[in-house]
């Protein structure tokens, strides 16, 4: 199950959905909002998604993980909207008969989500600047001030 949420992510409740008597292992990944990016001090983040396609692509990634690693259940929840430092941006959980597949599938899912799912992150810096991550180098620097720092 791949979903988006506008409110804070509660891993405990999500973890319960993966419970299965046939499973002896559970692995999860939590992505947190960090206070810096490439030397810039980050004040808060903004996530935006093209949800109709993102859910389809996310579901495909989960199905691939299940097929490839033979895990029993896989789920991913991604936050959108404004996030403060320390908040959970993304949660991935996998349950499997054994820990090895659970770790591999969990790693596969977060790596693929970051590469393939149409989600965008805008960082708002302490300096007052802001920038869309991975679009910075292509974008013209902001006209007002400190633009050069953003694009190095």
């Amino acid at each position, binding site marked *: 199950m791949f979903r988006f949420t506008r409110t804070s992510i509660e891993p405990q409740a999500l973890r319960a959905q993966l419970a299965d008597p046939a499973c002896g292992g559970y692995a999860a990944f939590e992505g947190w909002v960090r206070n810096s990016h490439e030397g810039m001090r980050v004040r808060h983040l903004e996530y935006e998604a093209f949800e109709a*396609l993102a859910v389809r*692509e996310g579901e495909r990634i989960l199905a691939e993980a299940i097929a490839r690693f033979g895990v029993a259940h896989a789920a991913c929840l991604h936050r959108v909207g404004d996030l403060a430092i320390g908040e959970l941006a993304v949660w991935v959980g996998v349950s499997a008969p054994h820990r090895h597949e659970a770790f591999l599938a969990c790693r596969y899912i977060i790596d693929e989500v970051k590469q393939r799912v149409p989600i*965008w992150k805008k960082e708002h810096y302490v300096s007052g600047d802001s920038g869309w991550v991975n679009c910075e180098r292509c974008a013209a620097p902001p006209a007002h001030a400190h633009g050069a720092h953003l694009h190095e």
Partner: protein
Amino acid sequence: MDPFVSGRFAPPPLYGLVLAGGRSMRMRRDKAALAYQGRTQLERAMALLTPHVARAFVSVRADQGGDPVRARFAQITDAHENIGPLAGLLAAQAQHPEAAWLVLACDLPLLDEATLAHLLRARAPARTATAYRSSHDGLPEPLCAIYEPRSREPLAAHVAAGKQCPRKFLLGTDTLLLDEPNPRALDNINTPEEYGSAMAMLTAQNSATTRHITVQYYALLREQAGRREEALLTAARTPRELYTELSSRYPFSLAPEVLRVAINAEFGEWSTPLAEGDAVVFIPPVAGG
């Protein structure tokens, strides 16, 4: 062996001439200035012609030189009066005898790129001219045709003998005659009724060649477009053409190479043909997680 086909000689350079020196008697208004879909007939003809020729001119009568519809184009002024459309070609050949001339009447509102492209592909530089055979009467169509430099002397002699009909001129030569790919393309319009029927036909064609597309914008593109979504009527045939069109309207900083395309909420290709009602999203580099 045909010296042009054998490659020993390059074909003469091709210049273009749009005939806009007519008197528009039956139309009762200047045909060059008639508007179709926001462009004058003359602008439309020049836009079709210009990409195919080394130089493009509009043929005018001496008293039309300052006319604003014609003044924005390079002009060649008729030296003969009252001999009909051949006056324009004679003046052009006198000025640039070394060139072949692609001649277009300016009253062909249904003339399309396919018809022009076919004529250019089929051009036979070793003949006097290359022209279409009329879909109506089988005779040569002299006013969407290529006249090679070798046509200059016989054409001058034809006029000097008191003959003015360009169709009769072509019939008496070795002109290569082609069948029209689109049988209505060379319908000319002389009366207000014919103008009305051409307009109706163009409107119908236009609805077949444009489509309603919804575009949603995300992230950096949303900020640069200043909107989340819009509904467009566009002639763009593919997402690539659509992005080019939108880039002329908005200050997009992302090159198409770094974007992906979605059509109806599924990944698509830049070259996928767009269909009526499609919803398109251009996907900037992603950064989830």
